[in-house]
């Protein structure tokens, strides 16, 4: 009796994990299709969700991976891999933000230098 209950529980986790990650994958692909997301920034998300779908679908792979890192309850290994993926994406974002702020700073400086070269005086916007 307990075995059956246990199976239903693990199965349910598996079903939710597979459906959830396939859903997220489709959502990301739709954003790319509608040009709301650049491929460069979608790539990491796609990798994370493809891997996540794979390991939640093939239970033996998940069990093996969980054993490898010493996790006794395999479905919680899913969470670990998801967190690793999210952390990687966040670090990627920090890199992107650093690049953007450097470019932004340079643009602000160029505007000031250009305005001076064009002889545009300081324009007061206050009353």
């Amino acid at each position, binding site marked *: 009796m307990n075995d059956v209950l246990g199976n239903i529980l693990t199965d349910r986790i598996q079903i939710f994990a597979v459906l959830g990650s396939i859903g997220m994958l489709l959502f990301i692909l739709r954003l790319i299709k509608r040009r709301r997301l650049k491929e460069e920034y979608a790539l990491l998300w796609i990798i994370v969700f493809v891997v996540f779908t794979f390991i939640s679908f093939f239970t033996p792979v998940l069990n093996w991976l969980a054993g490898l890192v010493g996790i006794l309850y395999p479905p919680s290994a899913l969470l670990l891999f998801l967190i690793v993926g999210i952390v990687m994406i966040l670090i990627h974002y920090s890199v992107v933000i650093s690049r953007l702020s450097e470019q932004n*700073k340079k643009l602000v*400086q160029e*505007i*000031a*230098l250009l305005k*001076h070269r064009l002889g545009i005086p*300081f324009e007061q916007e206050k009353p």
Partner: protein
Amino acid sequence: MRICVVVPAYNEEANIASVIQELKTYRQDLTIVVVNDGSLDRTGSIAESTGQAVVLNLPCNLGIGGGVQTGFRYAARQGFDIAIQFDGDGQHIAAEIDKILAPIEADEADFVIGSRFIDDARSSYQSTFARRIGIRLFSWLNSLIIRQHITDNTSGFRAYNRRAFCLLAQFYPVDYPEPEAVILLGKNGFRIREVAVEMRARAGGESSISGLKSAYYMFKVMTSILIAAIRTPVKGFARHE
């Protein structure tokens, strides 16, 4: 030698005209570059109305680092030989420029810091206890990293030769750049010299670092100093290349 004085100014309408005046009176042939760092007051128009300074108006506030770097970019592109960094708040004394200029002109140093603490007895500069502790800490940390004793890492009264300010035009730290620039130039093999200078107590306005913020400031600067220390030297600029 063509000399450019970079004057970063943020909301300095009360001081900027007299700073420009003082610099011009000290030496006629200086090119004064006021970097108006997105001031909310009339700093930009007042500086322009003196007719004696190049005024670079940044469309938004970049902070002291981004501001000073704009001046270095200008100096690099206009082919200046020496750049001097001089605060827009009236804290620095134009007549003291001679002292930081001399080692550059004699080619004994690439980068000269005007220090308030090299000779404590001679300096009339007043500072709080907490601030002195912080300054000691930077001094100790920076000295450890570049193996040269620097007493006043936060001084914004500095002179650079062309090689040094061209590097800074490319790479300049953003938030609290003075201590980090020392590491950057030190790690890239530039010759650093410190000379004792006098500074005034602040004429008007408030220091950018005060109160509870100073603890956070310390933490942030220490972190960026350590980061600067582990960064690899800049290719094509390092002095020993």
